[in-house]
């Protein structure tokens, strides 16, 4: 078995605040292969973005990686020095953020900020870097790229800025692109354009993508694999088809019920009741239990383990265990 490009093993990230320790990410593990697209889904506060920042190691105070490994080509980047980390960021793994309006420095031109990324990680001259910046802007479909190079971020629209962010992230041909809700802050029409662009670029350049979103619809036809997160833990992971057509965790089912489908006309959307748990005092058992209408006594007491549903699908929900028992019981009777 070849080594995966990125391996996250039992990652725990916490924020130490006055009122206690906020366990934003609580022991998650996943792998990412070269050129694949991984989707991470979950509602706000489920730890998606913190996972991404942990991989880049750009957590802000008081956040810290408490334990776990992040292996990139087999090397643990948690143990990297500051210098190694600098060479890693932007070169091997790049990230684009949620809000393109605030993610570009307002006092420097687009060209300056693009060049900076290029000059940091390649030994191009300034002219070559400029040419590369121009090429990248063309690639991401910015109109009139020559002019844009000398413009300031505030002169561009949100969609254009997100394209610039993508150009900047891809300028050094990273192996992995992390997209942290890249379309949330944009208009719906622009959202589709940006997603289309990312799909296109993925085909052309062949990098792996980690696509973070709270919107299952966004990643449906883009991802090879999907991870569903809740309260800093992974509920369920599997291929996109498995997650969509055979959800095996009550939370995933809830999520799917709450998005509109094209084929069903009169079906009501069913929201998930309640609000996410308080991450400073995580309950025993399944974090979703209090909001789950199928919750059982065991759900409140014991954390469900990850079970294979089939070769392409893992889920951690006691319902699956119950099913097996029920079937066994039936079998026993028969």
């Amino acid at each position: 078995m070849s080594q995966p490009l990125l391996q996250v093993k039992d990652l725990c990230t916490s924020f130490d605040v006055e009122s206690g320790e906020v366990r934003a990410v609580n022991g998650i593990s996943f792998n990412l292969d070269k050129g694949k697209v991984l989707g991470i889904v979950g509602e706000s506060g489920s730890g998606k973005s913190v996972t991404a920042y942990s991989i880049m190691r750009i957590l802000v105070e008081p956040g810290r990686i408490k334990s776990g490994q992040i292996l990139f080509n087999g090397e643990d980047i948690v143990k990297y020095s500051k210098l190694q980390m600098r060479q890693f960021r932007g070169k091997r793994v790049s990230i684009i953020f949620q809000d393109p309006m605030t993610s570009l420095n307002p006092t420097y031109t687009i060209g300056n900020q693009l060049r900076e990324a290029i000059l940091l990680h390649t030994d191009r001259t300034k002219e070559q870097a400029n040419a590369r910046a121009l090429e990248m802007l063309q690639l991401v479909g910015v109109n009139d790229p020559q002019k844009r190079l000398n413009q300031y971020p505030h002169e561009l629209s949100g969609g254009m800025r997100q394209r610039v962010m993508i150009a900047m992230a891809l300028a050094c041909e990273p192996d992995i692109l992390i997209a942290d809700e890249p379309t949330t802050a944009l208009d719906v029409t622009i959202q589709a354009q940006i997603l289309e662009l990312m799909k296109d670029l993925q085909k052309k350049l062949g990098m792996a993508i980690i696509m973070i979103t709270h919107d299952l619809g966004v990643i449906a036809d883009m991802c090879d694999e999907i991870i569903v997160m809740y309260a800093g833990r992974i509920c369920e992971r599997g291929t996109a088809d498995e997650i969509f057509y055979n959800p095996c965790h009550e939370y995933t089912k809830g999520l799917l019920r709450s998005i509109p489908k094209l084929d069903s006309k009169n079906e009501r959307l069913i929201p998930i009741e309640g609000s996410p748990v308080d991450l400073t005092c995580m309950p025993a058992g399944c974090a979703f239990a209090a909001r789950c209408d199928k919750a059982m006594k065991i759900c409140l007491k014991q954390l469900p383990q990850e079970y294979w549903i089939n070769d392409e699908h893992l889920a951690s929900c006691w319902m699956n265990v119950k099913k097996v028992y029920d079937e066994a019981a039936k079998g026993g009777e028969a």
Partner: protein
Amino acid sequence: MLKYAVKRILLAIVTVFIIAAITFFSMNAIPGGPFSKEKAGDPAVQAVLEKRFGLDKPVHEQFIMYLGNVLRGDFGISLKTGRDISQTISESFAVSARLGGMAAATAVCIGLVLGAIAALSRGKWPDRLIIFVTTLFVSVPSFILATLLLLVFCLMLGWFGVWSPNNPNYVLPVISLALYPMSYITRLTKSSMLDVLGQDYIRTARAKGVRESLVIFKHALRNALIPVITYVGPMTAYILTGSMVVETVFTVGGLGTKFVSAINNQDYPMIMGVTLFLAILMVAATLISDLVYKVVDPRISFD
């Protein structure tokens, strides 16, 4: 931008006009003030005043005349010395300007550095120390600070000579004048730096793999400096009024000393002239800092 500049300049002119009106009419209201005809005093001075200010004319004509005089740079003559006020101002302002300029430069340089250090070591001891010391400095009235510095370093320890016109020693006056604005700039820089360090584009820069020192000096500092520019106006005002105190304490014969003695002598034309002169300087400083602020920050130039 041009529209804003024009608007801003107009506001400045209106402000100066209002200040002129306030000074003129308030001085007019004083019984026995500079414009009352029954003023007993030196008949020669009285005659010049009458001629220059047209004291026999109605008040509004006097005011227009006064404005005209001021525009020509004529602030009238002192009751005490009988000399031209504009001449006194031009003579004594040189030393005040040098003192104020040095104090401003000191305050800005040290304040920015201390503010940046405090922001970067947020919550650790350098931050706490800097913030405590600067809070202490903004809690001491300048005349007490100046007097204590004079007492300790000049009279008791003898490290610095007492001020004399031929052998001016700027160190202590500059320190006493600079400490307050320096502390203010430190606190301002710290808060603006913290604000900027929490911005998304700093995260972008880090994610690009930019060196931490470059993140701070290239990406953060430039943005953090913008709010500090707005303090230039108030700082000029502070230094100009503060120099009254500092000059009096250290017996520096600048404009500040002249102003304080004019108040004590009830030399109204002098008070009026110097007030107007200083007010014009302050309004001009605020105007310039506002315009520079607009130019430096690309975000707001298109509002």
